[in-house]
């Protein structure tokens, strides 16, 4: 440390905190930053499931004001634009700094004291539960929370609210993959670390726009290709990664299971199966083999709208490779047969013996930062901590013992997030607390969601910005950002990493942990919620997970601070963690085998007809994160992608930028056309980060996968029409007395020359 810099404040500075120039070996006296007393706090990006390491730059006043790349194992200093701009939300003027309250939705919000807001919330919980039973109150958590907080959400729902209606927004993320992995392997996580991608000979990416949704993972893809690996991309759109693939299968949305069944059919007919692996390590192979027999390449070509030769080509390339890997994401998971789609990919990996080896296996590409960790410790409707089942008597007994309650007091399984909205409409759920989620933008079929929430007698939200959903609430609790608290997240590799606190929260802001503990105390169970901070919650989480498949017992804050992260299961403090599963060919089922599952393809739930002949599919853009509540406030990201668009093939005759109305059975919206050959003629695409009227989710269908209950975001029937004008993009709601929303509020850039409406024009040309 330079003699010219101020000593680090030990109350804020976590281990590993550095002086600015130490990071690059620059002589401290050459650099003004040191003279400013700047420090670098090591942490991770708050956004997607890559969990890139970064330093937050903290000034002499103890405020976060910038970002510096960090040489962490996962990302090797790389960051995407979201990660680079994330720090701007910490001290953003839109931050909520006092609880907001109103007794009815007809009133405007007013700022309230914490006492008043907490007391009012507890009175409403008691009133609703007293009149209609405990299950009339619901709780929705979020997968952007640290794992400590997701653990606490599950415990708070069951022990303090005593309701069975606990679920979370990871339900909209990767639960299909989770369900499939659990069925096939008895464990719910990716089989291989990212670093295995560098060792593979053939990489199959199914339904993932890696370049925009997981940008920093691209370095692994390109690294594999530098070594000569073949790349296969299955996606209806020619994405940046598909553009350079050896084989791009542009299949029709909603036909993935038919495609993968047909690939397996060819693998069998060409004699490319790994019979030894199948015999020693799998069950169900005979049934799978006979089912896929009817999925000939010609039949798949017909269903999927692709040449039959591509099916053969993919089968020969994947099965012919010495080591092959399959990674998939929402593109195949956001379907009414999302679990089955994932199972067909698993069948392909198992049939070719591509499991549990360096460079051979499978992975799921998580959307949210803690999409993996967020469901492991009990905020999912059917799960208890450690991935235990809430319906298993032995699992219930174990958790009740840790929580100090009677088994009879522990509620049973609840319903999923979308089903809870339907229950709100039927007044089966009358009160709700939402933590770190924004269903008004993220759930499908907006009209239904709005109607459900409007029926609520009481609604409270925890958030640090006033989201579209929070704007509908009776109480809004202002809580911390990721930079103002410590905690762990598990990334897409199931690698647990630790986020560190970089600044004190603004006055009036509390941690989610504090708020839940305060509510629990007022609900009469304060003795079960004595958690001064995340560390104490993590200690209980470790114990609650011990001995389960999701074993965190051996992971401690100290170990995480010393390492680049530890992958679970990690049963003891001297265990190195488990980056790669099944190295001995053994799965986590009692018989230690891969349970292959029979899948028959069925068409999407929203049928095509003369009025709705085309497919609508949705997805992300690189500049925005999920519902956009955070990223739609950051100037640089808004400039990069100011509004949604509709991607259309030139054969429909629209001019670039022309207003196009997209109509489904649920509603319609007008978007500027992005005319491109990069999409199938029978399909259109709209990115989903915006609220109504330009919400893709005003159009999507609320059909669910029967097992995972994930909505079918990735396909519904639609038609397109020419329109007069483009709908305005609404600004995020702001709190009382706060500045209205100018896009470039935090950005230090001057206004740019206008980009094309799609945000795809030439950027930054003077």
């Amino acid at each position, binding site marked *: 440390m330079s003699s010219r810099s101020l000593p680090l404040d030990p109350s804020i500075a976590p281990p590993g905190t550095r002086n600015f120039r130490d990071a*690059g*070996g*620059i*002589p401290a006296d*050459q*650099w003004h*930053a040191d003279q400013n007393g700047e420090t670098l706090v090591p942490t991770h990006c708050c956004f997607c499931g890559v969990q890139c390491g970064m330093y937050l730059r903290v000034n002499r006043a103890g405020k976060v004001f*910038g*970002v510096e*790349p960090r040489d962490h194992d996962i*990302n090797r*200093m*790389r*960051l*995407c*634009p979201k*990660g*680079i*701009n994330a720090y701007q939300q910490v001290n953003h003027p839109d931050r909520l700094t006092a609880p907001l309250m109103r007794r009815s939705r007809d009133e405007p919000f007013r700022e309230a004291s914490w006492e008043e807001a907490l007391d009012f919330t507890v009175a409403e919980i008691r009133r609703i539960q007293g009149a209609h039973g405990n299950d009339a109150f619901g709780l929705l958590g979020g997968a952007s929370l640290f794992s400590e907080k997701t653990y606490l959400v599950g415990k708070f729902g069951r022990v303090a609210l005593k309701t069975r209606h606990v679920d979370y927004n990871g339900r909209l993320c990767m639960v299909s993959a989770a369900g499939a992995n659990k069925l096939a392997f008895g464990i719910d996580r990716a089989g291989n670390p990212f670093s295995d991608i560098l060792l593979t000979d053939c990489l199959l990416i199914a339904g993932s726009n890696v*370049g*925009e949704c997981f*940008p*920093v*993972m*691209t*370095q692994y893809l*390109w690294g594999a290709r*530098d070594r000569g690996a073949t790349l296969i991309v299955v996606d209806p759109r*020619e*994405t*940046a*990664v598909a*553009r*350079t693939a050896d084989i791009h299968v542009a299949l029709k949305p909603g036909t993935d299971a038919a495609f993968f069944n047909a690939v397996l059919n060819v693998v069998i007919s060409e004699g490319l199966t790994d019979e030894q692996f199948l015999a020693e390590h799998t069950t169900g192979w005979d049934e799978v083999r006979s089912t896929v027999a009817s999925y000939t390449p010609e039949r798949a070509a017909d269903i999927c709208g692709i040449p039959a030769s591509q099916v053969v080509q993919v089968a020969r390339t994947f099965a012919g490779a010495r080591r092959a890997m399959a990674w998939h994401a929402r593109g195949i998971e956001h379907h009414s047969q999302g679990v089955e789609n994932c199972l067909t990919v698993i069948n392909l990996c198992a049939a070719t013996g591509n499991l549990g080896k360096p460079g051979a296996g499978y992975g799921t590409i998580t959307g949210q930062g803690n999409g993996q960790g967020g469901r492991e410790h009990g905020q999912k409707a059917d799960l208890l901590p450690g991935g235990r089942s809430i319906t298993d008597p032995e699992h219930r007994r174990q958790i009740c013992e840790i929580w100090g309650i009677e088994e009879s007091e522990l509620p049973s399984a609840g319903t999923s997030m979308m089903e809870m909205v339907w229950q709100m409409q039927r007044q089966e759920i009358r009160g709700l607390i939402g933590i770190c989620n924004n269903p008004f933008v993220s759930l499908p079929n907006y009209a239904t969601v709005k109607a459900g929430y409007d029926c609520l007698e009481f609604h409270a939200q925890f958030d640090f910005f006033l989201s579209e959903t929070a704007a509908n609430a009776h109480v809004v609790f202002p809580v911390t950002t990721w930079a103002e608290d410590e905690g762990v997240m598990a990334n897409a590799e199931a690698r647990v990493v630790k986020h560190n606190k970089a600044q004190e929260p603004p006055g009036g802001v509390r941690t989610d942990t504090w708020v839940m503990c305060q509510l629990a105390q007022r609900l009469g169970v304060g003795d079960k919620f004595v958690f001064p901070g995340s560390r104490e919650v993590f200690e209980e989480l470790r114990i609650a997970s011990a001995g389960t498949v999701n074993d965190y017992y051996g992971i401690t804050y100290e170990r995480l601070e010393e390492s680049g992260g530890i992958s679970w299961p990690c049963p003891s403090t001297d265990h190195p963690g488990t980056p790669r599963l099944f190295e001995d060919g053994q799965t986590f089922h009692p018989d230690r085998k891969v349970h292959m599952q029979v899948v028959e393809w069925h068409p999407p739930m929203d049928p095509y007809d003369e009025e709705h002949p085309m497919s609508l599919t949705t997805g992300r853009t*690189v*500049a925005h994160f999920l519902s956009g509540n955070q990223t739609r406030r950051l100037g*640089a990201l808004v400039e*990069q992608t100011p509004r949604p668009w509709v991607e259309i093939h*030139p054969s429909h005759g629209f001019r*670039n930028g022309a207003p196009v109305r997209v109509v489904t059975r649920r509603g319609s919206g007008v978007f500027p056309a992005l*005319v*491109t*050959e*990069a999409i199938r003629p029978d399909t259109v695409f709209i990115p989903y980060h915006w609220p109504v009227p330009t919400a893709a989710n005003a159009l999507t269908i609320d059909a669910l996968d029967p097992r995972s209950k994930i909505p079918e975001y990735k396909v519904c029937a639609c038609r397109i029409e020419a329109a007069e004008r483009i709908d305005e993009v609404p600004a995020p709601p702001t709190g009382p007395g706060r500045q209205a929303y100018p896009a470039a509020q935090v*950005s*230090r*850039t*001057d206004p740019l020359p206008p980009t094309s409406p799609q945000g*795809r*024009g*030439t*950027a*930054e*040309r*003077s």
Partner: protein
Amino acid sequence: MMGRTIFIDPGRCIGCQACVSACRECDSHRGKSMIHLDYPDEGHSVASLPTVCMHCEDPVAPCAEVCPADAILVTADGVVQQADTTRCIGCANCVNACPFGVPKIDLQAKLQMKCNLCYDRTAYGLAPMCATVCPTGALFYGTLEELQAERPGVQVADSFTFGDVVVSTGVAMVVPADKVQWPVPGGLPIVEVNGKDVAR
């Protein structure tokens, strides 16, 4: 040929604009990005192409050559600096002279700004911000040997023709191995690959 420099590989670019955001974070022109990201084949493909200052070497940087105020300095290690704020008169001669379309004028401030290869970082051994964060390696900072160790067989060009004029640059561009005779993305025919003449 080149020492430590930026290598641009448009074949890897995913158009994420992390480089643009990172460039804004750089302390030497904080708040402004000096990177151009183009979509050369829009409507047909999602291909994207980043351009940073090419730090022309031969002839001496055209922007610096035409500057009437002598505001653009070239350092001994070949980095073409952004205009000296005390000298620049905002006349935009440099904008017109640059064959790659790099310098920008802030009309209000009457000041030219351009990429200076993050001189505040590179002078001390760090990589420029854009090449540090680029998730794909489309912008790579290092020596040709370091690049080739990571990407076996990679070919690069650092001489380009504009009509009859040949411009050699400090920043190099990756050329697809099977297409060394072709123009590089952006339409500039190349004259040299890995230091060897391929002009004719």
